[in-house]
């Protein structure tokens, strides 16, 4: 394990931000932390970054307690962005890199390739304030990884970027993974997490409610849904055994299935009565898992033993 959190807890006054949280982040994966706003994601990341100290529990990197040396091995992009407006791109990159223990010479050599990749090469000696917001975000991403960190922590990296730049950053993240770097990112945009993550961990109200490899999480969620397209009156479908709910859309009907529902029986029952044009069994999207899980009070979930932990 590259990074481990063991029973970490952090409270601000009476408010418990993170409660008894344990995480294992293996080396070389893309690890997503998801959760609703105010779930404790940022606090968790801050504890990983050693910015705030947990009240109890510990954070280990390579099995060792996090020390100040650790800072040089991590790159961190906070959710709310900002750079020194009056400095030039080169100065900002060198300054941030030096603060991570790299020498000026090493950094200068890496600036041009990175700026070229980000389409920012011509701005190298311009001031940061001359860049557009999106350009500043790309620049900040460069400052986050310029020192070659082993662990890269990205908080809501894609927010505010256009699709072209999202693809650009996504490619870089995948390249970094190929180089053996570990990327931990937090988001509440589930589509991105679904496309990128090997691992997901969901936090709600300070507690972990989902944790595991993405495909296992999906399988473990158990609740598939079915999309059907029929000709005729489908009013009877909601009464069928195994169907938990029906949502009618313009072009299709979505059936939420109960756990262990037999899709074969359902298909037969429908086909007996009306003409079926399409019958799709859909894996639950992370989006649905998120919504379903976020609605439940984590304490309740854990008491019932119904956690989707795998």
């Amino acid at each position, binding site marked *: 394990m590259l990074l481990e959190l063991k029973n970490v807890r952090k409270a601000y006054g009476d408010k418990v931000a993170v409660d008894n949280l344990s995480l294992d982040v293996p080396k070389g994966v893309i690890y997503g932390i998801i959760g609703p706003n105010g779930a404790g994601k940022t606090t968790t990341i801050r504890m990983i970054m050693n910015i705030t100290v947990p009240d109890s529990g510990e954070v280990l990197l390579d099995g060792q307690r996090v020390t100040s040396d650790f800072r040089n091995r991590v790159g961190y992009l906070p959710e709310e962005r900002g*750079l020194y407006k009056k400095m030039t791109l080169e100065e900002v990159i060198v*300054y941030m890199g030096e*603060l991570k223990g790299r020498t000026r010479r090493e950094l200068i050599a890496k600036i041009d390739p990175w700026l070229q990749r980000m389409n920012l090469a011509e701005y190298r000696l311009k001031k940061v304030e001359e860049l557009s917001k999106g350009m500043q975000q790309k620049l900040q991403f460069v400052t986050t990884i310029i020192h070659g960190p082993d662990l890269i922590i990205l908080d809501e990296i894609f927010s505010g970027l256009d699709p072209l730049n999202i693809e650009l950053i996504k490619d870089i993240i995948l390249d970094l993974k190929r180089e053996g770097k570990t990327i931990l990112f937090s988001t509440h945009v589930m589509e991105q997490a679904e496309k990128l993550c090997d691992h997901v961990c969901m936090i709600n109200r300070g507690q972990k409610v989902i944790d595991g490899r993405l495909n296992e999480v999906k399988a473990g969620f158990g609740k598939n849904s079915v999309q059907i397209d029929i000709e005729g009156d489908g009013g009877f479908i909601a009464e069928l055994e195994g169907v938990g709910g029906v949502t009618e859309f313009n072009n299709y009907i979505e059936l939420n299935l109960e756990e262990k529902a037999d899709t074969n029986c359902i298909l037969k029952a429908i086909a007996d009565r009306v003409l079926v044009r399409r019958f799709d069994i859909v894996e639950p999207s992370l989006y649905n898992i998120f919504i379903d899980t976020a609605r439940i009070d984590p304490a309740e979930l854990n008491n019932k033993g119904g956690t989707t932990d795998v």
Partner: protein
Amino acid sequence: MSKFWIIFRREYAQVVRKKSFIVGILLTPVILGALTIGPTFLARMQSSETEKLAVIDRSEMQIGQSFKEALTEYTLPDSDMPYYSVEQVFELPATDSVKFAEIEDSLRHEIQDKDLKYFLVINQNPQVSDTNLYLVTNSDSFRSLNRFEKQLSNVLSSIRLEMSDINLSTDSVLALTGRIDLVTRDAKGESLPFQVKYFSMLAFLMIMFGMIIGYGQIVMRSVIEEKNSRIMEVLISSVSPFQLLAGKIAGLGAATFTQIGVWVIIGTGLYFMRGSLSIPSGVDRIIFDPFIIISFVLFLIAGYLFYSTIFALIGSIVNSEKEAQNFIMPVTMVFVLPFMVGIYVIQQPNSTASIVMSFIPLLTPSMMMMRVIFLAPSLTEYTLNGIVGEALLGFVTLSLSVVAIIWLTAKIFRIGILMYGKRPTFPEIMKWIKY
């Protein structure tokens, strides 16, 4: 390179390469020079010209003539020219009030036209009551008024003597009763005009005020910038809050000293050229007094550390510069306080109140400096009993307070810089300190 130095270097470079920094370096000495040397220079300009006056004497006792003769003893500084020139003595019988009104009216006009500086009216029996004498003037030179009073007293005393039964010569009575001219000298046994000290002190305090409050606010703004732009989170993931705080304060402090360094070079140049510059005597003695200079540098360093730490603390707990204004006001007021009570301190530099105030850490840099300038002993008279010892003790207590305030700030700073939104309440801040 240690992370402290990386931060130090950036903060330093950010200030030093600004145009305003260069302008400040060059402009400040000019302004201060004008402020220090200007008034003394003006005072001198005034007294380099003979002052004209006239007398209307209605006493019928030639008092006007005696007064005119008495004034011949005063000459202009560094020359033989008379200080006063009595243009005319009008001797009128006390009964001729028509003529008197006419003359007085024309003299008043001359004063308004600045052809005349004073005219003196001596009515009948001036030896009986002072109300029978008056001086008309638009000037309020203490020096001249004192001289006139003294000389008139002498003339009147001799008249009173002649009219009495006392059998003594006029000279011996005047020797007994005559008023003296008090010449002020400082502790070094040299006479230093009060205004020279006063304006030099103002100059020193203004440099100190400008440097400490100016650079302190730069420290604060730099913290607020990093906090607002959330660079702070990235910084704190790279360095410890204390390294950041220390690097910032030291880096900007170094900028302060670059500025002063340039001034010292300019000052040294002026010192060697002082002969040809005709700096009023006295000013150079204050500017180049080792005790004053060393005190100034030490109190500036300690004062800068003290105040800039407070400013960094303010920066760490507020969310915007606008919010910070509420906190800056009281801090600045505390520093300006000495300018207001200064008049008292410089008149009573050794009173209990002055001494106590100069040991309150917030006031020490300015108050102690004020006392140092007014009490500075000559080179051979340094003893720990007087101001030298007090300045030293003041520096030690201030330094200890600096350590305490840095300790306190470090505790609040590391939490404050990551808090956004609501400004923390005082009890919350107290909790951070204990935390």
